[in-house]
């Protein structure tokens, strides 16, 4: 009787395990395999900003607590958006390289929780617009991240459970690994990927540098 019970128990556990394994993973299903840009896999990165079929892709490796990334967001990105992304000449993908402080990975995860509700870029922009130069001073702690989500009218139950469960932590690790594998040694780090190759840019460089490189690629 006991033997039968043990065998039955093992079978039940095996069935439950099998069902659990067949369930979709916590990573979103929308991630596609056609997100290889140059040598960089951006499938775990942000949604594409701009025309996905644009001839040039700008891949930005960044950290939400990085002041240089904020400088680029504030000083260079508007011109890039206006001249290249809105005109369909280029698109932009943000890939997290969250290494600066303990709040950085959480902030990156929060953007994907916002993405679950179709608000990735609004949340991304809000984080950089609210940037504070201090690292780990609490400006992107979980409470503030939830407050940012609230200010964008996101579903707070969904967002909160997503953030607390850390369901995107592996996604952030994957993205950071992509950065390391491609020799990114500082943030922001960029790869401008055109039809004939890719060019790396390190740091919050001015628009003139981006223009010179992209004009030579178009």
């Amino acid at each position: 009787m006991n033997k039968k019970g043990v065998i039955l128990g093992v079978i039940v556990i095996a069935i439950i395990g099998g069902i659990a394994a067949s369930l979709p993973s916590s990573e979103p299903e929308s991630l596609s395999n056609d997100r290889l840009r140059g040598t960089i896999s951006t499938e775990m990165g942000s949604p594409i900003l701009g025309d996905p079929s644009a001839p040039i892709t700008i891949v930005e490796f960044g950290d939400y607590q990085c002041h240089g990334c904020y400088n680029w967001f504030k000083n260079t990105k508007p011109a890039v958006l206006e001249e290249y992304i809105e005109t369909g000449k280029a698109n932009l993908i943000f890939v997290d390289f969250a290494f600066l402080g303990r709040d950085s990975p959480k902030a990156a995860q929060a953007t994907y929780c916002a993405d679950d509700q179709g608000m990735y870029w609004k949340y991304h922009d809000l984080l950089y617009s609210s940037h504070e130069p201090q690292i780990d001073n609490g400006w992107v702690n979980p409470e503030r991240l939830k407050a940012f989500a609230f200010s964008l009218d996101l579903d707070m139950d969904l967002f909160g459970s997503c953030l607390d469960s850390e369901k995107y932590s592996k996604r952030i690790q994957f993205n950071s690994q992509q950065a390391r594998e491609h020799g990114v040694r500082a943030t922001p780090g960029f790869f401008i990927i055109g039809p004939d190759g890719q060019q790396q840019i390190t740091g919050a460089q001015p628009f003139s540098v981006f223009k010179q490189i992209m004009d030579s690629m178009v």
Partner: protein
Amino acid sequence: MLVGLLILSEYIFLEPYVVGHIPSGTELGFSLILIICMLSALVIPMNIFRIHILKSSKQKMSGGVFGTIVGAAAGACSCGPVGFAVISTFGSVGMTATTFLTNYESPIRIIAIVILIVTYFTTVKSLKTECRIDSKI
């Protein structure tokens, strides 16, 4: 030293093109670097002169070197290559150090400037005493 600091602090970029750039909002940091470099250019040669020519003690030299290094380190960290190298090499200790140097970047640079100013005046005073020509001879 000035060029080195401006490169480390990402005011000058060497790749893919040599370009200088002062992003808006970073003017204070740029000004503090200039002041540190100017003071270092005054203080360090004066102290080298004291040590080599007058064979004086190296105590006052240490103030100038310390001020220069502290001032330079404050700007070199953060999310640049130096900060990344420190964090990669030393892990959480490196992260704590980088965080401290980034969060207190401006106060640290101001302290470095104060140290350099104090070193300058003490060196000048010391040189006046040591270089005085004895009128009795």
